[in-house]
């Protein structure tokens, strides 16, 4: 007994040091698992409030650019709307509104903390459970995809960026429906990688990549980027480099997309697996 007490007395600092390091390591490992980090994230009310103040003040410097972006998006949507109207006036098409089910809802939010220089990047947005945002929802803006929501608090949400080595998103070629997995190798924030494409898929530099509707998170046809490099060698995973439409270092307003059919689809998929 005396010996044990002596041991503790002698190594008390070292034991305290090990104890603290152990706590911190458990936080680190939890953080690398998708939506498992309960405690250490920037979506809590204190860090969220600090980042909101910072975002509100730095927003003034980019108002001009944001306005331009908004006007461009409005133009695109108005064109789309006018196009749809033209089709619906043709007499042979009957639109039965009682059979129409809405599949997605959009919520507007603002990025208050952005990061793109690390291998595991997360963003923080100023909307949370009070705005109906939950985990595993799509985050996009007018130019393309940004990420998936990860941790939700009442007022703030943490988003796993596509610039995160854990990120896996289902994507396809726009001109042919071959699909693969979108991931990131952690090097350049302007390019991501699309892997597991079938070998016979026709790949050309400049082809557009968009999201596939097969996951329950992203709606079909949200833009991602263009192919910038094709591997001609016989690699196992048939990787292509994709240049993103979005400048991930310069983001502000985003939309969070909620899939209203998600639970139903997931319950179906689960029964199929059993």
């Amino acid at each position, binding site marked *: 007994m005396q010996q044990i007490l002596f041991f503790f007395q002698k190594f008390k*600092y070292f034991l305290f040091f090990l104890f*603290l390091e152990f706590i911190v390591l458990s936080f680190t490992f939890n953080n690398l698992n998708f939506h498992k980090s309960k405690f250490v994230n920037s979506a809590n009310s204190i*860090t969220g409030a600090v980042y909101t103040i910072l975002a509100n003040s730095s927003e003034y410097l980019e108002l001009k650019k944001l306005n331009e972006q908004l006007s461009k998006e409005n133009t695109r949507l108005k064109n789309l709307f006018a196009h749809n109207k033209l089709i619906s006036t043709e007499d042979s098409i009957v639109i039965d509104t009682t059979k129409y089910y809405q599949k997605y809802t959009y919520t507007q939010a603002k990025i208050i903390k952005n990061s793109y220089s690390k291998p595991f990047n997360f963003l923080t947005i100023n909307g949370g459970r009070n705005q109906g945002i939950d985990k595993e929802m799509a985050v996009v803006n007018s130019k393309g995809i940004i990420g998936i929501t990860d941790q939700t608090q009442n007022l703030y949400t943490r988003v796993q960026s596509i610039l995160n080595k854990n990120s896996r998103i289902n994507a396809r070629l726009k001109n042919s429906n071959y699909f693969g997995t979108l991931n990131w190798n952690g090097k350049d924030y302007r390019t991501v990688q699309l892997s597991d494409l079938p070998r016979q898929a026709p790949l050309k530099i400049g082809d557009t990549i968009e999201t596939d509707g097969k996951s329950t998170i992203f709606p079909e046809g949200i833009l991602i980027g263009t192919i910038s490099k094709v591997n001609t060698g016989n690699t196992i995973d048939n990787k292509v480099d994709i240049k993103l439409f979005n400048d991930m270092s310069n983001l502000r307003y985003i939309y969070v997309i909620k899939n209203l059919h998600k639970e139903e689809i997931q319950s179906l998929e689960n029964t199929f697996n059993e």
Partner: protein
Amino acid sequence: MNKNIRQSLFFLFLLFLQVLVLNNINFLGHINPYLYIAFIFLYPLKEKRFTFLFLSFILGLCVDFFSDSGGIHAFSTIFIAYIRLFFVKVYFRKITSDYSFFNLKSEAFGAVFNYVVTLTLIHHLIYFSFINFSLQNLSIVFSNTLYASVFTLILFFLGTYIFTKNK
């Protein structure tokens, strides 16, 4: 008491300087200085180290909260906080009775330089290894460590130079 208030103000100053300014510099795309470890260099030496280890834990964890890095900042900060005493003994040849008189400003510049450079390199190496979290891209880890260390050291020595001249 006055000393404690000054220490806590210094703590908060370094924390907010780090998370609000220095984390957003992104020099050449990705290089950021991590100046908050100046707290570890400048905290007075004491025989009882529980407060110091705990404060470095809190400081690292606060930076982690803001930068979404799990516990990586805290891990590397506690590590250099623990081994600080070893390097004080090596570079300044101090024994336990000298601790209360120890002040970084009164020491020779060469020894201070070695002490700060060693701790900074160790901190940054641990930090970038954990940030990378794989055995691939090791060259990126080393180059990031080097660039960020140079950045941090320039800021640290510039800061100490400016603040000592004012007195």
